[in-house]
C-alpha cells in the first residue's frame, strides 16, 4: 500500500499515456464532464469576439475595434447600472450575512429540538419560492391602495393620512430598503444553514471551560461562539463578494419605470438594451457590457482569493 502511494506521488511525465491507460476508468468517467464543460462553458466564450463588432444577429458582424466600449463608457445609464449593481449587491450581501449569523446563533440557543426544527423549516421555506411570486406578494402587501397591508397599518395607527400613502415599490427613496427587506425575508433562513453547521461543530468543552470561568450566556456567545464563527463568516462574505455582478432576477421582477435610476443593474441594463427598443439590438454592444461585467467579476474573484489566503492561513478559495 505504501509502495503504491509513493508511485502515485511521483508521476513520471514520460509515461503519461501509460498512466492514462492505467486509470482509464477514471478518465472515462471524467470525459462527459469535460465535454460538457467545453461545450457549455468554454465554447460560448468564443462569442466574446462580438464585443468588438457591430452585430445585429442578421448580417455578418463587422469589426469596430473598441467602439462598443467607448459607447458604453459614455452612457449615463451604463454607469448608473454599474453603480447600482455594486451598491445593491454589497449591501444585500452584508445585511443578509449579518442577519443569517444572528438568526443562526439564536437558533443554536434553542433547546427545544422540535421548536427549533419548526422555526428552521419556516425560515427556510421562502428560499424555495420563485422571485416572481415573491415580488407579487410584496407588491400586494406594500400596495398604496387601501388593500395594502403596510399602508393600511400605517394609516390606522395614524402615521400616514389615507390620502398620502406610500408607493413603496414605485418610489426611488423606498425601493432599495424594500428590496433589502425582501431579500432578508427570502434568503436569511437558507444562509443560516452553513452557520448552523459551523455552530454544531464547536467543541462543547469550550463552553464548559467558559462556564467554569464564570461566563454567562452572552459571554459564551461573545467569547466562544462568535470567534468560532469568524472564519466561516469571512469565507461566506468573500465567496459571495465574487458574485456581486450577477444580479438579475430579483431586481428585474421588483423594478418598474419609476425606480430604474436606483434599481437598474447591469444585467437588467443588458436586457433593456436588447428587448426594449422595439428595434433590432446591437448584440455587439450588449456583449461588450457583458464582457465588462465578467471582467469585473473575475477581478473580484482574484481579489477575494487573495483575501481568503489571509483568512484561511495561506489557503485560497480558488
Amino acid at each position: 500500500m505504501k509502495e503504491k502511494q509513493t508511485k502515485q506521488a511521483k508521476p513520471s511525465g514520460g509515461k503519461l499515456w501509460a498512466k492514462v491507460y492505467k486509470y482509464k476508468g477514471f478518465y472515462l468517467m471524467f470525459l462527459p464532464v469535460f465535454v460538457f464543460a467545453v461545450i457549455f462553458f468554454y465554447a460560448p466564450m468564443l462569442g466574446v469576439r462580438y464585443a468588438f463588432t457591430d452585430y445585429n444577429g442578421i448580417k455578418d458582424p463587422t469589426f469596430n475595434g473598441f467602439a462598443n466600449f467607448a459607447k458604453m463608457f459614455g452612457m449615463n445609464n451604463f454607469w448608473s447600472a454599474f453603480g447600482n449593481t455594486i451598491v445593491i449587491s454589497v449591501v444585500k450581501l452584508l445585511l443578509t450575512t449579518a442577519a443569517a449569523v444572528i438568526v443562526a446563533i439564536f437558533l443554536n440557543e434553542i433547546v427545544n429540538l422540535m421548536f427549533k426544527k419548526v422555526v428552521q423549516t419556516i425560515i427556510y421555506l421562502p428560499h424555495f419560492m420563485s422571485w416572481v411570486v415573491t415580488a407579487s406578494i410584496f407588491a400586494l402587501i406594500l400596495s398604496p391602495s387601501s388593500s395594502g397591508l403596510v399602508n393600511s397599518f400605517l394609516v390606522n395607527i395614524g402615521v400616514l393620512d389615507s390620502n398620502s400613502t406610500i408607493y413603496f415599490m414605485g418610489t426611488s427613496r423606498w425601493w432599495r430598503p424594500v428590496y433589502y427587506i425582501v431579500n432578508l425575508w427570502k434568503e436569511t433562513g437558507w444562509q443560516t444553514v452553513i452557520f448552523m453547521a459551523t455552530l454544531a461543530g464547536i467543541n462543547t468543552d469550550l463552553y464548559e471551560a467558559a462556564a467554569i470561568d464564570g461566563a454567562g450566556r452572552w459571554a459564551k456567545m461573545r467569547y466562544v461562539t462568535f470567534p468560532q464563527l469568524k472564519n466561516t463568516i469571512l469565507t461566506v462574505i468573500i465567496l459571495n463578494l465574487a458574485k456581486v455582478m450577477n444580479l438579475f432576477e430579483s431586481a428585474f421582477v421588483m423594478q418598474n419605470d419609476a425606480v430604474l435610476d436606483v434599481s437598474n443593474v447591469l444585467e437588467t441594463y443588458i436586457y433593456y438594451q436588447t428587448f426594449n427598443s422595439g428595434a433590432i439590438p446591437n448584440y455587439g454592444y450588449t456583449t461588450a457590457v457583458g464582457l465588462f461585467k465578467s471582467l469585473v467579476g473575475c477581478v473580484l474573484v482574484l481579489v477575494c482569493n487573495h483575501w481568503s489566503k489571509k483568512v484561511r492561513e495561506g489557503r485560497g478559495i480558488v
Partner: protein
Amino acid sequence: MKKKVVSVLLVAAMVASMTGCGGNDAGTSDAGTSDAGTSDAGSVDAGTADTGAAEGDDAAASDVEKPEEITIMFDGTVPTAENGQEQFIAKLEELTGIKINVIQPDHDAYYDVVGQQIAGGDWPDVLILASTQMSSYGAEGVLWDMADAWNSSELKTRQEAYNGAGVVESMFIDGHLYGMPATHGNGCVTYIKQKWLDDAGITSLPTTFDEYYEDLKKMKEAESVDYVLAASGFLNAEAPYINYLPEFYQDAWPTFYQKEDGTWADGFTEDSMKAAMERIAQGVKDGIIDPETNSYATSDVRNKFYDDSLGVFTYWAGTWATNIKTNCENNGLDGTMAVMEPIAEIKAGVQGQHDNAGGYIDRVSPAWCITTQCENPEGVFKYFIEAMQDGADTQFLWTYGVEGVHWSTAAETLYAGTEDEKVYADGEFHMEDNLETPGTQYTKAHIDPMLALTELANDPRDTTVQPEAMAAQELFNSNSVGAFVTPSTDVMNEKNGDLMTEKQALVAKVALGQMTVDEAYAEYESGGYAQMSQDIVDSLNAQ
C-alpha cells in the same frame, strides 16, 4: 472489473442523457398529429386547396409550387396548445395540403423569443410580427417583400371589394410590403361601468376632458374607491404607446412621427407631451388614476376592473366588450358598459398624426411575414398567406376554429343550471366553451370576424358576435384613425432602446409626483437624450 463495468455504465448513461437533450428541438413542435396533410400534399390540386380562389386564379396557381412543409411562428393570438391547437393545425394541414410545424412561445415573451430565433439563424418560414418589428426586420433583409405577389393576387381583389385593401396599403414601407395583415388593426375604446355612472348621477357621457375628469371625480366619490381607472404602464414601450390613457394624452405622441411636410419629429419634446404629463400627474394626485399603473400588466388592470376596484377601463373594442361584460357578470357585477366616443380634445388632434382630425388610434395590424430563408416564398404566400383570407373554408378556420372544438352546430346546452345557461338547437351555429377558461365562450380563433379584410362566405358572425361587441366595434370604427408604420434606421436601432427606457422613466416619475415636468425635461437634456432623439430624427430625415 466491477468498478470498470460500473464506470462504463455511468458514462454511457450520462452520454445518453446528453444526447437525448440535444435531440430535442426545443420550442419547435409538430403540432399536427395527422399525416394526412403531408401525404395528401402531392395529390392535392392547387386550385382545389385554395378553396376561396376564383377559377381564373388557377392558372396563376399552377405556376407557383406549393410548399410541402413549412414552419410557422406565432403568438397567443392563434389557438394555444390548451385551446385546441393540435386540432386547429391538423385541420389547417388538411385544408392547405401543407405540413405545418409550429413554434408558439409564451405570448408575453413572444418578441424576446423572436429576437433569439432570428439571431440564432434558424428562421421560421412564416411568423407574425407587430409593425415596429416588421419595419426593423424588413429593413435588415429578414423579411421577403411580398408587394409584387400581393399586387398581382386574387387576395388584393377580394380585399378591395371589402374595403380591406387600404389596411394593406398603409403597411407599405418605401414601396415594400413585408407582411400581410389578417385583420384591421383595431384599437381601444373607453368602457365605463353603467352602474358607476348611475351611482354618480351621470346621465350623459362626457364629450370634453373637463367633463370627463369631473365625471371621474364624481364616480370616485360615489363609489368610495381608491382610484377610478388604471392602465398597464403610464407609457408603453410598444406602438401605439398611449392607447390605454387616450383622454390624458389627447394629441400628444411620445415618439417619432412624420409631419405634413414630410419631415420627421419627436413628439416627446413637444408641448402637447408636456401637457399630457401634467394631466396624468394631476390624475394620480387626485386619486383618479391608480399609481400602480406604473407596474401593472394588462391582466392586473383587467382583474381590478372585474373585481370592481375600477370603473373606467380603456381597452380593445370588439370581442373584448363581450369578455369584459362576461367576466364582470361572473363576479356578480352588472356587466352593462357605456362606451365613450373620443372626447373633443382627441378628435381635435390625432395622436401621431397631428395635422388631421382624429379619434382613437387604429393601430397598425400585426402581420404575417415570410422570411427570406423561406425556400419558396411565392408558394407560401399563395397557399398559406393568401389562403388565410380565401373567403371560404380556410378563412372560416382562421376565424372560428375547428368544428367540435371551437364551434358547433349540434344541439347543446352550455352552462346548464347556471344564470348563463344557453340552449342551442340542432343546426344552430354557436361557439363552444373555452377549454382553458371554462365559463366563457370562444369569440374567435385568430381573425376577429368584425375586423376581417375580406368577405367570408356564409359568415355566421351575426349569430356569434354579441350586440355589445358589435356596438363597441362600430363605435371604434366610426371614431378611429389609422396609425402608421415608422421606418427603421441604424441610428434608431442603436439608440432607441436607451431613449425609450428614459422616456418611460421620466413619464412615470412625473406621473407619480416625484419630478416636475420641467425637471424631467432638464434631465432629458442633460442626460444626452435630447441629442439621441435628434440623431434619430436626423437619420429618419436623411432616408
